[in-house]
């Protein structure tokens, strides 16, 4: 049996149980959402004892070195005694200063962080509400802008998105943890063709990345695909068209599955993207964000057409998983 110590009490784990499940089962509050190692909501720190390597996959080296790990991916071996603490020192207080409706079901949430906060455009943060509810959102803003901007899609019955859409008023306080993720532009190859593809609010990080790349002087072609089920699922269309008009190397292609017209193209996103690529996409870099099935499928197809794995940056927006849901890592 493994056991975990948290705030001076020891909690036994059942065989194969994760630290997250064991603590929640015994009434300890730990922020969490995806339970699949993707959102970093469940970040904790081991103050004594070693965590399995699998519990630190995807974390920055600086966090690993300080003992941080993902509680949902941490299954200590039998006999391990682990002492853990929450990640509160990684969170900074923030104030919601502005909410703006971008479409029928997407709202832009703007936050002012009350401490220095370094990030790269396109990374994501975890928003932690006063009561501990945690969800991850990609950043649509640029580091030089003084506010963080998130694009939140209202999910039916959604705890956090519903709160943003209905209850939050400017002035509300939350905590922000992060940033995380490697979906960001790296200067150095200004002529490389870039493929940016997102579904729904997968546009948020891409909106940051595309502006970041253009401001960094990227000269190679930038293909930005934004997919939605129908036209009202698209947003920032005018802003992106204006941006494309100012930058001839930016090719913006909004795409819907149904209800397209002369203004908006209709068709399946993945097929259109693949059809737009040259036969051998050498030197291309791709950024894929949004719906997990779409992102994972597209990543595989791009790899098969010749993209190198290291040139494909993908953030799958995994939803929260209730306790009885699939175990971490299952697919």
């Amino acid at each position, binding site marked *: 049996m493994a056991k975990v110590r948290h705030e001076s009490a020891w909690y036994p784990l059942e065989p194969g149980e994760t630290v997250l499940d064991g603590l929640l089962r015994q009434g300890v509050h730990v922020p969490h959402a995806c339970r699949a190692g993707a959102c970093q909501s469940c970040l904790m720190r081991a103050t004594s004892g070693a965590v399995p390597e699998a519990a630190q996959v995807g974390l920055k080296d600086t966090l690993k070195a300080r003992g941080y790990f993902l509680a949902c991916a941490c299954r200590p071996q039998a006999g391990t005694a682990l002492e853990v603490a929450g990640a509160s020192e990684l969170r900074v207080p923030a104030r919601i200063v502005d909410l703006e409706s971008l479409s029928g079901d997407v709202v832009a949430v703007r936050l002012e962080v009350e401490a220095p906060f370094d990030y790269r455009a396109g990374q994501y943060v975890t928003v932690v509400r006063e009561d501990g509810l945690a969800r991850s959102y990609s950043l649509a803003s640029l580091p030089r802008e003084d506010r963080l901007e998130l694009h939140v899609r209202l999910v039916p019955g959604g705890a956090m998105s519903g709160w943003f859409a209905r209850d939050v008023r400017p002035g509300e306080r939350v905590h922000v943890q992060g940033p995380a993720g490697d979906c960001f532009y790296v200067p150095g190859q200004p002529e490389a063709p870039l493929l940016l593809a997102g579904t729904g609010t997968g546009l948020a990080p891409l909106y940051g990345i595309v502006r970041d790349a253009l401001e960094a002087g990227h000269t190679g072609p930038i293909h930005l695909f934004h997919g939605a089920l129908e036209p009202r699922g698209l947003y920032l269309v005018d802003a992106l068209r204006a941006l494309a008009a100012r930058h001839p190397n930016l090719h913006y292609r909004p795409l819907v599955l149904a209800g397209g017209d002369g203004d908006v193209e209709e068709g399946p996103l993945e097929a259109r993207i693949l059809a737009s690529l040259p036969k051998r996409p050498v030197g291309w870099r791709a950024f894929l964000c949004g719906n997990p099935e779409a992102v*994972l499928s597209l990543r*595989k197809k791009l*790899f*098969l057409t010749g993209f190198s794995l290291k040139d494909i940056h993908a953030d799958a927006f995994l939803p929260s998983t209730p306790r009885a849901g699939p175990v971490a890592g299952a*697919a």
Partner: protein
Amino acid sequence: MSSVYERIGGEPAMAAAVEVFYRKVLGDDRINHFFEDVDMERQAAKQKAFLTMVCGGPSNYSGKDMRAGHKHLVERGLNATHFDAVVGHLKETLEELGVPAELVGQVMAVAEGARADVLNR
């Protein structure tokens, strides 16, 4: 005598080979269902372990590990046809990367030697 692994360029050569090999495997409908993984990086790391092993690089896998490591796949139907397909992709990968025929032959022999363990025979 130095290993094939060293003679074809060690770790950097494996890093180059792994994408070529993994792409072939994922593109082959006869076997790709064994290799689907949400985490492509993790799968690629395993492919690299495979390549390193058959090329005689640093590897700690025993025949027993090979048995245990592929048992769940045998239960899902892994058979000699699949084995031949993987070995075929291995051969093509090495040839595409310009590995001399003599060394390719050595790698093939190592791979063949793992057949019984991989198929849990």
